């Protein structure tokens, strides 16, 4: 360990509203100083000229597939992809096999993460046993074992009574309820957004209202129970309006939006290409515009990837047989810069908030801050770095993305967890005295990325 000095960057820290040139000094796993012209003779130096130095990014919505689906992703590979996307913490959805509905699975995930993950992994526990929507999971025990929220992601809780009971318990334990909002009766048989394109392609539609009716129901239940409630991957303009209304009434509700839902529409999707197949589906241009506006107006709390790896053979099938979901950790920041910051919808400070304090507050994590005394989780990115996403070089085990070959402006440059550089785009570290030094073997990511 030792000391690491990040020089010449633009420090953006939403918690303190700091946005300006500053150096950051890290001692061991803690930030010891933030200020201009810091000096530390014995420190390794990371030159962040032209880059933004931000608190470590948090992704609320990741599928790590372990245990059970290790052919598609493991905690180790998912964490590496997260680091390459600038994330220092990721929340792991419980739809593994077995489902994370008990302390044993939660403990297994945390232990695997401790041994193999380069970033911090926060398990999300199930709401119901086996995520079957019937019997409640042991919510208090899951929380005690380390779960930061509960969700039956991918298998929404259809029974309103079960959801009510879950919210009542969650409130008493002070844990957030995250819902994948989809009325399964309305969405049955659907493979893409219901609209002119689904009709043209002869594909079953998933209507916007399949999401909206469940958001409406859950917001009423959140009001009834006082639960801390979070809408995962919100995708429609009506759902957004309802969340805005609930917030205006003072309810403890929040929502996240994925990068792909602010970037692509149903009409943009390549017909019958499963790299464009996910839930919720890519919506209309009107919905995309509403989501961007919602982000700009502050209704949206976080950008979350819904990183959902699937193997090549699973995605190489008839469209309606292909599973839903795309990977997204490595492209999230670039898309957010591209769609939100470069066109002038939001400032860089607001962007950083969407990746740090925003998601941290959703699940009650005390992180996402860049100030002396805080844990040294730091994300360094260049808002103007031009690059092309090559999914064949991805750290994820899976390749299901519609963004392969896409040009981006803006990218993560280095990811620091507990004071250690766990990934960097190119070797940025210099030892004290300006002599270039090889990075430790742990940072194999940097070597691969540089290739």
């Amino acid at each position, binding site marked *: 360990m030792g000391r690491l000095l990040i020089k010449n960057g633009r420090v953006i820290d939403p918690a303190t509203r700091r946005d300006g040139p500053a150096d950051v000094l890290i001692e061991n796993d803690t930030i010891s100083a933030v200020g201009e012209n810091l000096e530390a003779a014995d420190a390794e130096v990371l030159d962040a000229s032209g880059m933004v130095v931000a608190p470590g990014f948090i992704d609320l919505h990741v599928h790590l597939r372990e245990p059970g689906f290790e052919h598609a992703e493991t905690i180790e590979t998912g964490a590496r992809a997260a680091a390459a996307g600038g994330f220092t913490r990721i929340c792991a959805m419980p739809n593994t096999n077995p489902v994370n509905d008990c302390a044993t699975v939660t403990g297994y995930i945390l232990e695997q993460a401790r041994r193999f993950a380069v970033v911090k992994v926060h398990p999300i526990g199930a709401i119901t046993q086996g995520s079957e929507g019937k019997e409640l999971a042991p919510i208090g025990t899951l929380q005690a074992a380390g779960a930061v929220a509960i969700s039956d992601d991918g298998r929404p809780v259809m029974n309103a009574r079960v959801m009510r009971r879950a919210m009542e318990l969650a409130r008493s334990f002070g844990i957030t309820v995250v819902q994948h909002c989809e009325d399964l009766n309305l969405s*049955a*048989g659907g493979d893409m957004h*219901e*609209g*002119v394109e*689904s*009709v*043209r*392609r*002869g*594909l*079953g539609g998933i209507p916007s209202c399949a999401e909206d009716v469940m958001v409406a129901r859950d917001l009423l239940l959140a009001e009834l129970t006082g639960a801390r409630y979070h809408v995962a991957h919100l995708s429609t303009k009506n759902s957004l309006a309802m969340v805005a209304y609930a917030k205006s009434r003072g309810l403890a509700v929040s929502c996240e939006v994925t990068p792909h839902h602010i970037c692509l529409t149903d009409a943009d999707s390549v*017909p*019958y*290409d499963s790299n464009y197949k996910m839930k919720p589906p890519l919506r209309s241009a009107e919905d995309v515009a509403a989501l961007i506006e919602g982000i700009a107006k502050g209704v949206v709390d976080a950008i979350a990837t819904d990183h959902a790896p699937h193997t090549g*053979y699973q995605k*190489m*099938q*008839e*469209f*309606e*047989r292909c599973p839903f979901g795309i990977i997204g950790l490595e492209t999230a920041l670039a898309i957010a810069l591209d769609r939100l910051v470069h066109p002038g919808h939001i400032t860089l400070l607001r962007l950083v908030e969407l990746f740090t304090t925003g998601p941290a507050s959703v699940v009650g994590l005390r992180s996402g801050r860049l100030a002396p005394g805080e844990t040294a989780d730091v994300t360094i990115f260049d808002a103007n770095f031009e690059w092309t996403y090559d999914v064949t070089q991805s750290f994820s085990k899976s390749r299901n993305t519609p963004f392969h070959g896409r040009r981006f402006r803006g990218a993560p440059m280095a990811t620091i967890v507990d004071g250690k550089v766990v990934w960097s785009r190119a070797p940025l570290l210099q030892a004290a005295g300006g002599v270039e030094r090889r990075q430790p073997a742990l940072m194999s990511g940097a070597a691969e990325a540089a290739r």
Partner: protein
Amino acid sequence: MRRGLLGIEDLTREEIEAILERARDFQPPHRQPFPRLETLRGKVVVNLFFEPSTRTRTSFEIAAKRLGADAVSITAAGSSLSKGESLVDTLNTLAAMRPDAIVMRHASSGAPHFLARHLDIPIINAGDGTHEHPTQALLDARTILDRKPALSGLRVVIIGDIVHSRVARSNIHLLSKFGADIVLCGPAPLVPPEMAAMAPGVRIEYDMRRAIEGADVIMMLRVQLERQHETAFPKAEYFSFYGLTLDHFELAKPDVIVMHPGPINRGREISSEVADSQRSVILNQVENGVAVRMAVLERILGEPWEDC
């Protein structure tokens, strides 16, 4: 087009006209045996049917044979697909045997489009899910043109389960490209409003009598119960609101023709009297099926036509 035939939507008006024109040459002369041609001698066409089909598969087989090609037919029940092989692997296996074209029917929309991206061999879509059935629309157009001077300005009413119909979609694209006036009619859950935006010249009319007013062509569709996830309409009242009977002819043009892609369900969407009436051209459609598929196979596998 020489790469295969996936749908009508991607074809130009000129390409469609060329096929329809060539199909006339293949319409059988009356009471004479059809001469066997040698145009595609030595070519192998594989008919790969993942869904049951009588008329389309037989029609493609006869079309290939009349042109001198060899036709091999495979149905899903007897194929390795029933042994758990993936679609891509099945197709790769067949492609390794180097047939000249694969005619394919599949229950999933876009299945042939997906395969066409990964295979070099020309694929002819013989119906994909609820998406397209291009040769059906071509034979329907040939049948209409045998009786009407042009498609432009014709009022064509399509009645029935539109949303689940690949026949309807292909016909909408084809007729729209030629400036026909297209009216879609059926129970509201089976005719979503978005269908009117699929192509120019399409409108929706939920009242069958109003839909038929002034019609030159009435296309009836089968109600595809097998494609519905739940009953989208009350079955008991279907025929009284959307079944075609002799009375309806009074509302249409005097020379209206009635079409149906088959198989017909007498008493469910069409009365027996209508099916057997002089206005019904259902069997002419079947006859033209062979002629149109010959034209399609020749265009894809034969010597290049002058216009392309």
